[in-house]
């Protein structure tokens, strides 16, 4: 069963959302759903004490991802 909600976004947030939907070929619902899954996935790893890193393309830099 699916439930409906109203999402209040600023003009900037909505612009980013719409741009990403266009780029990814997703509806706003599908994009928010993916964002939620990714956020939860990262948050769970951090909660388990794991570290999440982002590596530069040339592998010269590795940054630890922090989530608020």
């Amino acid at each position, binding site marked *: 069963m699916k439930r409906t909600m109203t999402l209040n976004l600023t003009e900037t947030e909505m612009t980013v959302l719409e741009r990403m939907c266009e780029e*990814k*070929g*997703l*509806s706003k619902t*599908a994009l928010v*759903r*993916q964002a*939620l*899954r*990714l956020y*939860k*996935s*990262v948050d*769970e790893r951090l909660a388990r004490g794991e570290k999440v890193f982002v590596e530069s393309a040339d592998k010269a830099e590795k940054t630890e991802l922090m989530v608020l």
Partner: protein
Amino acid sequence: MKQIIATVPLFDLGRGAFCDASLFQGIDLDTLRSIEADWTPIFDAAAPENPPEDAHWEWAAKALQALQNPLSYELFGIEADARTQGMMLVVKGGPKCFSRHPEHPRAPLIYVDFLATAPWNRPGLTATPTYKGVGRLLFMTAVSLSIEEEFAGRIGLHSLPGAEAFYRNRLNMTDMGKDDAYQNLRYFELSTTQARQLIAARP
């Protein structure tokens, strides 16, 4: 929880005809018992010099993982003759679900984490396999899920060496080479275009 979502055709190699099988979403204790009782003894009896590559997969642990995180995981199974003929665990979101394909870099996709057919359906394990098409049916289920999630049929997966030819030649996925960040397994993707072609070619 397990629920039947479709009746699907499996080719019975013994009879030379299609028969009905049940496609399930989710998993229950009966399925886990079926895998433990029916699959494990055949894996254990396989030649030690050539063990099945997936014999160590623990489906009970995978089921728990999926049940604990329904937001990101889905389990599917196929049953016929009151036995589990194949199982698949897919991921719908998270770091594995970004495309690496040049056709659509970073586009979302369904990642097939584990896909296995019952040992009696594998030509490598038995001289007379029972059913043909279990792996393809499960894979097409992942493609359907990808479309339902608005991912246009895109699929990504890391293949065990013994399954590479299946993904490369039978499903026409793009072989993107060995992934040194994932046990050096080869990474395959089904692009949007390849998904359309695969659906069009579906028997």
